[in-house]
């Protein structure tokens, strides 16, 4: 039996074969960014401790370039406080950093719909929308957004 093994091993050496498996493709692409989402607009003071913790965690993740994790943190915050316009705004900023302009504009609009007259936030949201529209090649739309900002600032 041992001799068979020896012969086999010689044959095996001449037959170079390797197994190949199928691998899953990941589509994660992480853009290098630094946190910028909570610089101008401070978290809503009426936010619950849970939401504040998650915003903080998201900030940490965003600084480390872990954008998906940051988004995941803010999604948790939104589940806890769906009407917290600031969290939607932060999301819009994260998407802007990821150059996901459609999402950035969508979240900014959602934030505005919940802003209840918080002018600074609304203006910032329109800035995101203007920027996103410009990047998407919608110059006319960007101009309209800019006009809205000007009107709000008067």
């Amino acid at each position, binding site marked *: *039996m041992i001799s*068979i093994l020896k012969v086999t091993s010689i044959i095996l050496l001449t037959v170079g074969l390797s197994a190949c*498996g199928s691998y899953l493709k990941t589509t*994660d692409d992480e853009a290098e960014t630094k946190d910028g989402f909570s610089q101008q607009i401070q978290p809503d003071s009426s936010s619950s401790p849970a939401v504040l913790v998650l915003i903080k965690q998201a900030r940490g993740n965003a600084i480390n370039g872990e954008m998906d994790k940051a988004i*995941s943190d803010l999604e948790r915050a939104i589940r*806890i406080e*769906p009407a917290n316009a600031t969290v939607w705004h932060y999301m819009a900023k994260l998407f802007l950093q990821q150059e996901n302009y459609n*999402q950035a504009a969508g979240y900014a609009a959602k934030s505005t719909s919940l802003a*209840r007259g918080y002018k600074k936030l609304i203006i910032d949201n329109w800035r995101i929308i203007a920027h996103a529209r410009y990047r998407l090649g919608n110059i006319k739309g960007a101009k309209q957004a800019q006009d809205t900002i000007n009107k709000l600032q008067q």
Partner: protein
Amino acid sequence: MPPRSTRKTKTSKQVPKKKITKKKAVVKKKKSLKGSPQQNKSTSISQFLDKISWRYVVVVLFLIVCGYIVYLDLTVRNQFDGKRWALPAKVFARPLELYSGLKLSENELLSELEMLGFRNVAEPKRPGSYFVDGSEIVLTTRPFQFWDEKTESSVINIKFENNSVSKIVNFSDDRNVDVMRLEPVIIGGIYPSLKEDRLLVKFGDVPDLLKSAIMLVEDREFYNHHGLYYKGIARALWANLRAGKTVQGGSTLTQQLVKNFFLTNKRSLWRKANEAIMALLVEWHYDKEEIFEAYINEIYLGQDKARAIHGFGLASRYYFDRDIGNLELHQIAMLVALVKGPSYYNPQRSVKRLVTRRNLVIDLLVTHGVISAAEAKAAKHKSLGIISSKPSSVSSHPAFLDLVKRQLKTFYREKDLSSEGLQIFTTLDPIIQSKIENILELKTAQLDKQQRLNGSLQAATIVTNTTNSEVLALIGDSRPFDSGFNRALDAIRPIGSLIKPAIYLAALDKGNEYNPLSLIEDKDIHIKGPNGDVWSPQNYGKRQHGMIPFYTALSHSYNLATVRLGLNIGFESIQETIQNMGVQRKIPAYPSMLLGSVNMSPYEVTQMYHSLASGGFDMPLYAIRAVAALDGTSLKRFPLKVKQTLNTDTVTIINSILNNVTRNGTARSIANQFPDNFIAAGKTGTTDELRDSWFAGFTGQHLAVTWLGTDDNKPTGLTGASGALKIWIDIMKQIRTQPIVFSSSADVEYIAIDPVTNKRIDASCSNAIFLAIQSDALPAEQYNCE
């Protein structure tokens, strides 16, 4: 010398020789297929054979044998080096997020813990246990690898007040926890045709006692043989010969592993030979630790319905809800006892039989000095200790799992789903899902009986989170655990009056022509079709109402007013609005469309109403949050997609009218059954001859769509209000939800109206109804309530 060695090879390879003859036969056949005459060929073969000496034959035979061994070797190495096991994807529900202020009752948490297989014990020290102390629950969480972070096991104290979580404290550092996630409940797996499941463990994680026990019972010479234990084989052979049948096996662990990996259970000499060769090959390539690790992960140890429990890792989780490293002596002995025959020793068949064998294993451990007699005595006195509520992987929510699979198929191949051990994190809320499963089953049976439908009444319902379009619950059958036709996704039915809000929304969006108080006409109308047929729609109850306010026409679902309004604004703008509401299906442009002769699935209706519930945003419904690889690395995230497609202001107006539907319109039974602070919006839908009964309605947090009908499209005798709405009400009573908050914006005001004069009145008037109205269309004020 050479002749002798060849002769030896020849005899030791008796079995493969058979194969060779077979191969020759195949060659023959092939040739004859090519068309050469049989006669000629056999003559040529014999001539050829005459020419060559037997020595060459032996060499050829030897080479073929070698080739076969190479083939076996490749098979062995492929299995070992590549992915050894097809691991089914695991599907998880949403993790329960805990924070102070969360509206969650103690009972709801307990039912979540039960689904997680947590056990109620006096001292919840071990992960996966809890203890109830009045209005507090102390629990020890299990560690869990989420797609975005790993959480460690910790002892948590959760305090409840007024059916809400009031405080969470971590016992290890005595600090308040602001927010934490419990591990998610497993709701199912995506299995290949063979439903094998396992939880892989590493050699180093296996307790020494378990290793010793396995070797003592199954293969004492494991570390001393090269795959085969000749003495053992001889002993077994002798015993079997004496008995005249197989009574004893001489298999080493390596042989058992090879048998499980590559071969069938059939007892044959050919299989035995293959097994022996492969065992030697495995031993030649891999060290003992690798082989042992493969063995403990491969071995079959039980059956959970359709799911086969493989490996000691999953078996210790399945039988004892423990990590393999935390097993106690009696548990280790039981698992080792099972190896001999998991079905024969199945504790469900006979506890006694298994206990006897377990104790035999314990005795063996004493005999060989692995444990002391005292330890053995204590262990033998213990009951099996198998947990009763086993965390199952076999799905009890087939319709939801079906949705998950469909959404996954866009990104993954079926094969990867059933073999890569993917972790699928979904949006399912198991608390809501199980509540509405009960409601749907019970209520449909009641309505079926009431309408004498002989069990043919079917149902589907979907509940989503209006904030982020997550599908929280989905049922596609009046018997929610049946996995047949998934009506929630596949029953494409006319939607009746559910289409009306789209028409009224399109009207509001058309210039400044309409506001909620605009008068529209509810009067007979006859429309001539292209083939000369005349369509004469009627109101439910066959009455006409003359000139009525826009909001009344919608809240009372008047057909004639709606048809007139729709014809006035045109099909095109309605089609566009419906598209903006997230419906992808092409909507026909003929008059009966205005009364809902448009077919949609409950899922599509949910998507459509979601745009209203979300305040004008098109957010595709989704059921998967993330997919992670076996090691926990995130592979794919499914972030919520948000796009504003409707005007927030006109949506607010429509929603305020749909709120009136639930207060004084077709669904006013909602107002009768809920407290005043339950603020919802919704619409009933009924189709011709009462074939379909629909209700789509939402609060500030949840949207639920319910459909009732029969599969063969027979009349059910149920309207939207007398059928689907009843189920919707029961669902909302069971869900902890938030009211819609109507508020004024720059262009829309939310005001009180006298429903008789349609003038603005004080909000404190008892007859007031509330509507959102464009700021430039506000009615005159009226100073008394009457």
